Structures are given as C-alpha cells and as structure tokens.
C-alpha cells in the first residue's frame, strides 16, 4: 500500500539487546524454573514427595490458596490490594451454612453465598472510589469489620453439620478431588478472560496507566469496581469450597491464608508493577507456596519454619522482580545511548 509516498520506509531500530533479552527471559520464566528446582530438591530429599497421593495432596492444599491468590491477583493487576479476601470467605461460609441448615436448596445457598461476595467487593470498591481512600486502608477496615460481623453472627462458634456441600469439598470426579477441578476451571475461565477479552485488555491497561486508559476512552470507574467485585465473588467461591471440605463453617480462618495468597501473587511477578500479570503464573505461585509447606512437613521441619520460608520468599520475589525490572531499564537505556553515539 505504501507506494508513491514522499518519504521512504524507515527501519525502526531493534531496541532490545542480548543482556536485556536475557533479563526478560529470567523475569518471564524464572518462576517456572524455580518451581522445577523446588520439585527437584524435595524429590531428592524425600522419597515419598513425588508419589501420586502426595502430589494430589499438594494440589488439594493449593486449591483453596490458589483461589484466594487468583482473587487477589485481579485486584493487584488493577493497581490496588484487597486485604479482606479471607473474612469475605468466612462470612460467605457462615451465611451458606446457615442457609443450608435452614433448608434452603444447595444451588440457591451457593448463589446467595456468591452474591454476598459480590456485595462485599462492591462495598470495598465503593469505599475506595467514593470516599477517596487507598485500597490498603479501605480493605483493612473491611477486614476488621467483617471479622467482627462473622463473630457476632456465630457468637464465635463454628456451625457444624453442613453435609450438603460434601460432594463439592470431598468428592472426586474421575479420581481427582473436586476442589482441584474447581481450581482448574476457575483459572481457565479467568485466564481466558484476562488474555483474550476486551475486559482483560482494558483491566491491564487501567492497572498499567489509568490516565492513558482514560484518555483512550476506557471507562475508568468500571475497571475500579470490576476487579474488587470479581475478587469478592472468587473469595466467596473459596469460602464455599472450604465449607464443603470441612463440613462446618469456621468463624475465623488462619491469617496465613492471606499471606500465602499475596506471596503467590508476588511470585507471579504481579505485585508492585500493576498492569502486569499472567494468570498461569499466579497458579504456579500458589503451587510453589503449597509445595514448600508440603515439602517441609515431609522433611519433618517444624511448621513454624513454613512461615519463615514463605515470608523470606515474599521478600525475595518482590526484590528480584524490582531488581530485574530496573536492570532491564538501565541496560536498554545504555544500549540506546551507545546506538545514538554510533550514529553520531
């Protein structure tokens, strides 16, 4: 098409040099490499690690954490954070348990539970958007408030005897535990949405540069609400899976679940940057967190060390992500200077 034009076609220079490419590969595939290294170390250290039942056990353990991590990732991609995922799940568990014990059909109880998650997300986003608060503070308030609400509803006691969701939490399909299948299905759905749809593309854009997205005609406010609402619904799903697994609704969940979820997201390279995030890597991050916990137990290391390891892992992951990004920037800048100099 470019034929009789006044200017000739100019070749834009290839701005990426070999060292930058290497750093990028490190950033893009480092987490996969780390996971295999972890598998290698544990399989050498413990003969039972690579057995089928143990691997399925890791996946089962990862199934709940990975749902929280996925919920968190959507918010972090949009450039915010949600500390309230765990109490949302606890609240949903309690409400679904009460509904089931009151004789409400399973499908309706589940729908009510997901609806409660939806409303919690809506609440978080509304506080952030309309009261002009940072997501950290807003969701910290939600975290505390919801924890209190759940304790008030239950009087601090678990709700026992919820059997209707046992097939979801404990059953198997084709030999695989159903929570694992829920995890895979949810990840597949969210993965497709994030990588293949207009919604995913725009959410990444708003997270990467909200002002640029706004100027390109993207309705910013919608993309402030959507990730929190999605986060609330997925957290609710996690709460329902936990209810099915335990057969009872617990008023309090371990706080470590939130830390594990955030660590998984950080390992996936989503944290800090905003606008960046691969859903598959979030799954890998969750698997790493679950694998470390599992491997340390097999090696008879005190579970207290799991906290220490996970904490260090979070710090190292965030540091490495930042360091690599800065190195890429520095290296590509210096390369550009050299090219300029060569031309002059």
């Amino acid at each position: 098409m470019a034929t009789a034009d006044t200017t000739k076609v100019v070749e834009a220079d290839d701005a990426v040099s070999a060292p930058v490419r290497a750093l990028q590969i490190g950033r893009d595939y480092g987490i996969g490499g780390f996971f295999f290294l972890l598998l290698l170390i544990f399989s050498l250290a413990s003969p039972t690690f690579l057995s089928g039942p143990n691997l399925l056990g890791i996946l089962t353990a990862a199934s709940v954490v990975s749902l929280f991590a996925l919920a968190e990732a959507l918010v972090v991609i949009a450039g915010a954070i949600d500390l309230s995922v765990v109490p949302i799940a606890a609240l949903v568990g309690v409400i679904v348990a009460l509904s089931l014990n009151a004789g409400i059909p399973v499908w309706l109880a589940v729908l009510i539970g997901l609806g409660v998650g939806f409303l919690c997300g809506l609440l978080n986003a509304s506080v952030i958007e309309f009261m002009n608060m940072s997501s950290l503070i807003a969701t910290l308030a939600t975290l505390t408030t919801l924890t209190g609400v759940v304790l008030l509803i239950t009087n601090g006691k678990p709700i026992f005897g919820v059997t209707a969701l046992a097939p979801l939490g404990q059953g198997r399909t084709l030999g695989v535990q159903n929570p694992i299948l829920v995890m895979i299905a949810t990840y597949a759905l969210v993965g497709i949405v994030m990588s293949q749809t207009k919604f995913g593309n725009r959410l990444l854009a708003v997270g990467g540069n909200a002002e640029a997205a706004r100027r390109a005609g993207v309705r910013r406010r919608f993309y402030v609400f959507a990730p929190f609402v999605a986060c609330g619904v997925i957290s609710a799903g996690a709460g329902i899976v936990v209810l099915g697994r335990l057969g009872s609704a617990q008023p309090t969940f371990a706080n470590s679940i939130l830390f594990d979820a955030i660590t998984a997201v950080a390992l996936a390279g989503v944290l800090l940057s905003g606008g960046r995030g691969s859903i598959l890597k979030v799954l890998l991050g969750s698997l790493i967190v679950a694998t470390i916990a599992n491997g340390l137990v097999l090696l008879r290391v005190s579970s207290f060390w799991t906290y220490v390891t996970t904490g260090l892992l979070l710090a190292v992951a965030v540091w490495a992500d930042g360091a690599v990004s800065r190195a890429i920037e520095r290296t590509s800048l210096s390369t550009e200077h050299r090219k300029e100099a060569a031309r002059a």
Partner: protein
Amino acid sequence: MLEARELSKSYGAVKALDTVSFRAVGGEVIAIVGDNGAGKSTLLKVLSGAITHDTGQLRVGGELVDFRSPHDAEQVGIEAVYQDLALVNTLDVGSNIFLGREIPRKGMAGRIGLIDRRAMRREGREALRDLLGVEFPTMRRTVEMLSGGQRQAVAIVRSASRLEQRGRGVILLDEPTAALGVAQRQRVGMLIKRLASKGHLVVIVSHDLPTVFELASRIFVMRLGRLVTELHANDSDLSTLVGLITGAIEPTDITKVVADDDATASSDINRSSRGTK
C-alpha cells in the same frame, strides 16, 4: 480546515490567550512557538478540547465548534498527542494502538467480548507502515521495551489511525521531539511530514526551533498570550525567530507575510459536531 477567531482565555487577571486568530488547512505542518508562559500549551489545550476558551470562535471544516471535552474534539477529527504520550508501558504495541477500540473476533466470539490479538498486531503493523513508514521488528514487545522514537511513533500512529477511520483531520503534537536523540528526532520529523502529505493538518508545539524550521511551513510566534506574528519558514531564519520569541525583535520590524492563499479552508471532515451553534 481549522480556523480560530479571536480566541481568548483568562485565568484570573492573567490572559493566557489574548485574541488569537489563525487559519490552517489539511496538508500543512504549522508550528506554535514561544517562550515558557507564552500561551502555546493553552492554545493546544483549547484546540484539543482539554480546556474551554472564554471568548472567540473555533471552526473546524467551516463549522463552529464548542468543545467541552477532548472527546468532543475527537468527534470532529482532532487528535492530540501529549508529551507524556499516554501509552500503557506494560501492554504490547498492538494493544496500545487499539486501546479503547479493540478489534473483536468474528462472529459469536466477538459478541461475548473476545478480541482478535492477531488482527490488532497485523493492523497495527500496517498502520505503522502505511501511515508513518515505520517497520517494527515485532508487535509483541511491550511499550516499555521500545526506544523513545518508537514510542513516539506508536503514540502518533494511534491518533493517526483514528483519524484515518474518519477521513482526514487535525493532529496536535506537544513537543514531539523533546525526549529524543538526533537520529530519532529526524525519524519523527519524517513521520510528521508524511502525515501532512496524507492530507492531515499537523500542529506542533515545540521548543526545538531547528526542527520547527525543518518541518513547518508556517510558524506562529506567541508572546504573553498573543499570537504576535506568523513566519514562513522559507523566508526567515533562526535568529529572527529567536528575536521574535524573546521580544528582542518586534513583529513590525520585519516585513509581514500574510498568507491569503490559505483562505480556501477545506472541509475534509464530515462532522457531527456537538454544540454546533
């Protein structure tokens, strides 16, 4: 194509724009120069709809327009590329070019919101080649990995391809060469000439006077909110221009060149102008 009549804008006692009038047609490159605070940016923002002028008239393709937002300006074919470029660094080139108007997949898949990334890369590549004459090695690269010149090209082509969809229009460039090295500056210069040769009106605001001389056919000099004079690039020189900008030379000191042949303002744009009076 673009005509301003006695545009004024005040901030309190400060006259940021003082009865500015000019006329320009498609195919031209015009430059707005002036010292800091001379009103260049204010003029650019009024033209792009980012701010609203107090008095005076603005006509696009002969029709009176009244912009309330940049969106209004885009509706009549005026696109602005600001200095910060407004690109999303973490997205690839194709996604940036089509941000806000993603290409849907064909059929049912498109209706439920699936986008055709391959088409976006292909059409982005074609737009870069056809509109700007730039060939990118890969469209998958994220914008953060591009050189300054490449980023400028992506930002310009995004605006230019929006204009192409509706025929011809006006593209406003704020300091297009500010962050660039020598070679890249030349490259962006070629892009600008090429846009004008496609029939668009290109308006650049710049401090880079040598580039201004090289690219623009006419140079508008602003001082203290007023458009003090208009130079034809071929019959003027850098020292005169600098003198005019700083106030060392008064416009009356030189023979004024008034272009009447531009009076035939073309109406390339079929607009659905909002607020047309």
